């Protein structure tokens, strides 16, 4: 995945998305009919996040983009090389993963996602393990040659993902103390989160794009 310099956001996301290559497991299934297939909805609550109005506020797609605490991203300065510069032949990944990334908004936070990797988001209520999820709020899609910029959303773009597990963040100790006033509180806190693995990015081809002339 790190073969091309243009799509090398992987290094910065190391703290959140460990390189999760499953060479044999994931082929991006780009059938947009996933959201409509009733076979996936074996359980009554349809896991698709397209039905946003019925979901509680934890996955409300409000338009505000918050600067909530992102993990510290190590600075990996990349000189702005022209596109044909990286002539390094990519080592043979068995399935050729399509080189595309998207910026998606989940729980009023924005994430840069790649197919085949996982991200941790805030806990999605009503999502169980191995549920398919479609994320509609795609703000930007980038491929090797063109960029689709949404105002604010790229029309008809969808990111398909699978819920892997619903866990908890590492414990944070909330310690409150006031000196000389005999006030101290010691509380531990684990924030619930959800790990979702990105399957594929679809539906962006028809949007107006900014294409490189290369």
């Amino acid at each position, binding site marked *: 995945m790190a073969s091309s310099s243009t799509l090398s956001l992987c290094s910065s996301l190391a703290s959140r998305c460990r390189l999760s290559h499953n060479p044999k497991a994931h082929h991006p299934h780009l059938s947009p009919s996933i959201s409509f297939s009733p076979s996936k909805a074996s359980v009554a609550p349809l896991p698709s996040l397209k039905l946003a109005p019925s979901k509680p506020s934890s996955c409300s797609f409000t338009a505000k983009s918050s*600067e909530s605490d992102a993990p*510290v991203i190590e600075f990996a300065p990349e000189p702005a090389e022209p*596109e044909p510069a990286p002539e390094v032949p990519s080592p043979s990944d068995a399935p050729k993963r399509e080189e595309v990334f998207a910026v998606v908004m989940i729980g009023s936070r924005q994430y840069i996602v790649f197919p085949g990797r996982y991200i941790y988001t805030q806990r999605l209520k009503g999502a169980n393990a191995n549920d398919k999820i479609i994320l509609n709020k795609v*703000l930007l899609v980038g491929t090797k040659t063109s960029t689709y910029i949404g105002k*604010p959303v790229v029309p008809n773009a969808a990111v398909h993902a699978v819920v892997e597990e619903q866990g908890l963040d590492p414990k944070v100790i909330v310690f409150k103390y006031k000196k000389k006033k005999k006030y101290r509180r010691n509380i531990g806190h684990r924030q619930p989160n959800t790990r979702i693995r990105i399957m594929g990015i679809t539906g962006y081809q028809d949007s107006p794009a900014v294409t490189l002339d290369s």
Partner: protein
Amino acid sequence: MNKAKVFKLAKGFRGRAKNCIRIARERVEKALQYSYRDRRNKKRDMRSLWIQRINAGTRIHSVNYGNFMHGLMKENIQLNRKVLSEISMHEPHSFKALVDISRNAFPGNKNVVHAPRKVAMPLSV
């Protein structure tokens, strides 16, 4: 919290603060207070860092941060600063597309910024 927990949290402290319970307990409490405060400060610091990075990225293309964000807001592009800073670092072509959109959305921008000139300093100086 009991002594074992205190010592576990006091790893890496200087001098007797990692070994002696009376001192370690004080230092650990202080450390926990700082971490409470800094969880809030981290959000501010990160945003400041993102803004600096975006500023650096846009000035390469002769636009400064303020006009760039103004143009994006006009075009109703809702990418946040975290993502913009990442794109400016790793996806230079996408970022240039964004800068062009912003520049076109906000014509009459008299404040054309020139890219910082890199002067080759001789090492002996």
